[in-house]
């Protein structure tokens, strides 16, 4: 059964489906995640970002769909009339728990929002796969289709040294869950620069420039739109990184001020993150119609002049 609802000037059909035994309607073309959240269900997401087409790679948002052999990713599965969806079953809980454990045991999720809450909710214990191994580290050298046979005494991780090769931002791929958002933001979905890619295969898959060259040798234009979409803190302003290293990063004390970028006539919205009366990083609202969270190098990183004072 379908009815029509009017949203703004567009007429969008709506479809009726069942979520956890309750009939709900959702606009045609929306996703199960939209529909579930609209009806108050809490579904964890990791690789999902609000400005990028979902890659549905993390598989933490899986729900049960009647008639489907496997669970389905709610972030990208579109609603259809008559769907019967369950968001909280033994299978969905198991999958979320295991995905949290698999990521938690292989990736540094210390800066990923909500993870400790979800670990509690789903009884996820990443440590049950064994002590993490940090010895490898040379992930850029991996040979596709080959690996060292593990002895099982430790759990392999994606640990590798932080890449610091430019003055503006750092890349700490030990924190990378491979959500693909930075690649998509750099590439065809936003920036069209294609400086980074997913290289290698399987557990050795990693975000990389060509031949893992430094960013300064790559096509990177330092728009920082990859930092904007990174959900795990793997990509970070140098200013933030250095303050965190020094132990002076205090997010709870920071204020956020929205303003308009002063450089050109486009009029991008900026959100200035300020600590101790100093700008420590710049973001842009992802729901803003001008930027969708995207900026250029000037808006993103060119804030130093604001706090320069005249020499005495």
């Amino acid at each position, binding site marked *: 059964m379908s009815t029509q609802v009017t949203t703004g000037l567009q007429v969008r059909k709506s479809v009726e489906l069942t979520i956890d035994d309750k009939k709900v309607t959702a606009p045609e073309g929306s996703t199960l995640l939209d529909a579930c959240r609209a009806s108050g269900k809490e579904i964890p997401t990791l690789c999902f970002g609000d400005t990028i087409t979902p890659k549905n790679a993390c598989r933490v948002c899986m729900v049960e769909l009647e008639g489907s052999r*496997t669970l389905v990713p709610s972030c990208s599965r579109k609603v259809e009339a008559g769907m019967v969806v369950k968001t909280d079953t033994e299978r969905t809980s198991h999958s979320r728990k295991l995905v949290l454990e698999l990521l938690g045991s292989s990736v540094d999720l210390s800066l990923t929002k909500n993870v400790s809450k979800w670990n509690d909710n789903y009884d996820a214990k990443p440590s049950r796969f064994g002590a993490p191994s940090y010895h490898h580290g040379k992930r850029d050298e991996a040979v596709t289709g080959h690996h060292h046979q593990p*002895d099982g005494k430790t759990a392999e991780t994606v640990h590798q040294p932080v890449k610091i090769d430019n003055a503006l931002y750092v890349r700490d791929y030990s924190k990378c869950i491979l959500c693909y958002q930075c690649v998509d933001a750099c590439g065809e979905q936003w920036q069209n620069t294609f400086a980074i890619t997913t290289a290698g295969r399987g557990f050795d898959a990693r975000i990389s420039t060509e031949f893992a060259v430094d960013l300064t040798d790559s096509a990177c234009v330092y728009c920082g739109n990859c930092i904007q979409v990174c959900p795990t803190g793997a990509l970070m302003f140098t200013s933030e990184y250095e303050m965190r290293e020094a132990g002076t990063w205090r997010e709870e004390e920071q204020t956020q001020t929205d303003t308009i970028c002063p450089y050109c006539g486009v009029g991008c919205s900026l959100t200035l993150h300020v600590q101790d009366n100093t700008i420590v990083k710049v973001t842009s609202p992802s729901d803003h119609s001008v930027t969708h969270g995207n900026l250029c190098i000037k808006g993103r990183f060119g804030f130093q002049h604001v706090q320069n004072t005249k020499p005495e």
Partner: protein
Amino acid sequence: MDLKIASGSANTEERQAVDSLLGAPTETSQGAQRDEMGMRVSTGGESLRKLRHLLLPTLHSVNDRVGYISRGAINYISQRLDIAPAEIYGVATFYALFDTKERPARQVHVCVDLACRAASGCTEETLPEGAIPSPCLGTCERAPSVLVIETGVNVRQEVLAPATKTQIAELVAGKSAPVEQPIALAAPQTPDKSLVLLSRIGNTDPLSINDYISNNGFTALRKAFAIGAEQVIAEVTASGLVGRGGAAFPTGRKWAAVASQPVKTRYLICNADESEPGTFKDRVLLEGDPFALVEAMTIAAFATGSQHGYIYLRGEYPRALKNLTNAIEVARNKKYLGDNILDSGFNFDITIFRGAGAYICGEETAIFNSIEGYRGEPRNKPPFPVEVGLFGKPTTVNNVETLFNVLPIINNSGEKYASWGSTGSKGKKLFCVSGAVNKPGVYEVTFGITLRQLIDLAGGLKPGSTIQAVLLGGAAGGFVGPQDLDLELTLEAARTAGTTLGSGVVMVLDQSVNMLDQLQRIAAFFRDESCGQCVPCRVGTVRQQEALARLVNSEKAGDTAIDLQLLRDLGQVMRDASICGLGQTAHNAIDSAITRLKVFSA
């Protein structure tokens, strides 16, 4: 696109390799010489980007010529195809047959997969120095097997199987492999014209179209044109044919779905990326009867209204590549391909697309990405390929053996074909029998014989062998034990028994085989072959391998239960939440060894 090309330029060889495929560059932005005015022109962006499907063939061309993909080569390809260097690097590093570091021109790939390690004990660790361990090379009937690739102006690929350790060392040292043994030896029932799928193997020259024609060739195609596309689909539907790649989807339903699409540009893909460990049936068909594939694909394309076909052939099948290339060329010259085939008004042509060492590219949507010049990562379904497939168009993807079955269906009738087999499994089936039998090879049977009968057909067990286990369906399949020999080899009986026929692998492992080693190899295989896109498979296959290693090396009995539980948990999340069939089946064989063979119960 505004490309930023860093340091490193292609040398003459690399440029020649690229230009041999793409033609000489015409614009300075692509590396052409400046004209006499010294002008730089660039007009090709949009048209170049339509050539992205040439990326993998171009990488092959460079790899064939110089043995690896250098920075300079990537930069030059980047200019020629207007693809960013990073993206090309991402694609090149996806495939195991490519390397982005300089390496010797001669690469000796030694199979260390299930059948070969069972036969020779050859593992990753015990290979002669300089040899490269390889996943299943698809010549399990004469394990252990070696593939030599010597790159250069005329790239050479040789298969040697069976290979002794001394021979492997000699190959590494540069010696040539002897001429590969005749194709028909891989199908011990042949030559026998009464066979249905293998009728031409061993008695028809695979390089001669005249020989093919005089052995019943192109009769089905003529009949198909006579009865019309709708009737062809009706016959295939009536035959009860289901896909032979492992998923067993009804072929008629797939074709009808494509034929009913409103979009008229449609593609047909023959999935010849046969990489499931233990599987080699498609190789025998491709090598021994390539014209039949051309005929069957033309019928499938005619039925589904497709204008172009691709054969996605795994990169490790040199003889199949040679014979197929010849068949397509000859068929085109004789007007069996191209415009107005047999005066029917139907136009169709076929392109061979070489894989480059990625099991995942046998997944139907990963094939699309691979052909389109992207990393061979599976796509999310829906939309299904029959609606949105290759280049976004409706696409039929059929396995080689599935397509071969179309010929007897059309030559006889759907009804006749359906009279063969059991209630739930119609027609003829090829099984790849390897391991501890006297005559390993591809066997054509009518659905319904038992595992015991099939082993007898393959000459029975080797002297002194007793069955420890039989692997059905490959690494993605499952083990059965000696108590299961009366299992009827039908889809329904396998399902009832909690196992699968998969791609038709029947690997007989005798008492001499180290089962724990086999299980560890299966775990390693899935870890290596996972594309890395989704978490359950990318990390799950690693955790599965680690847990297995602990179980195998376990000294403390108490931990066994914990690790077995861990494996069950991993199996469930991979099955429930992986994007594609690789992750969903990556625990099957290990699970069957634990539950059915009780490998870890003292």
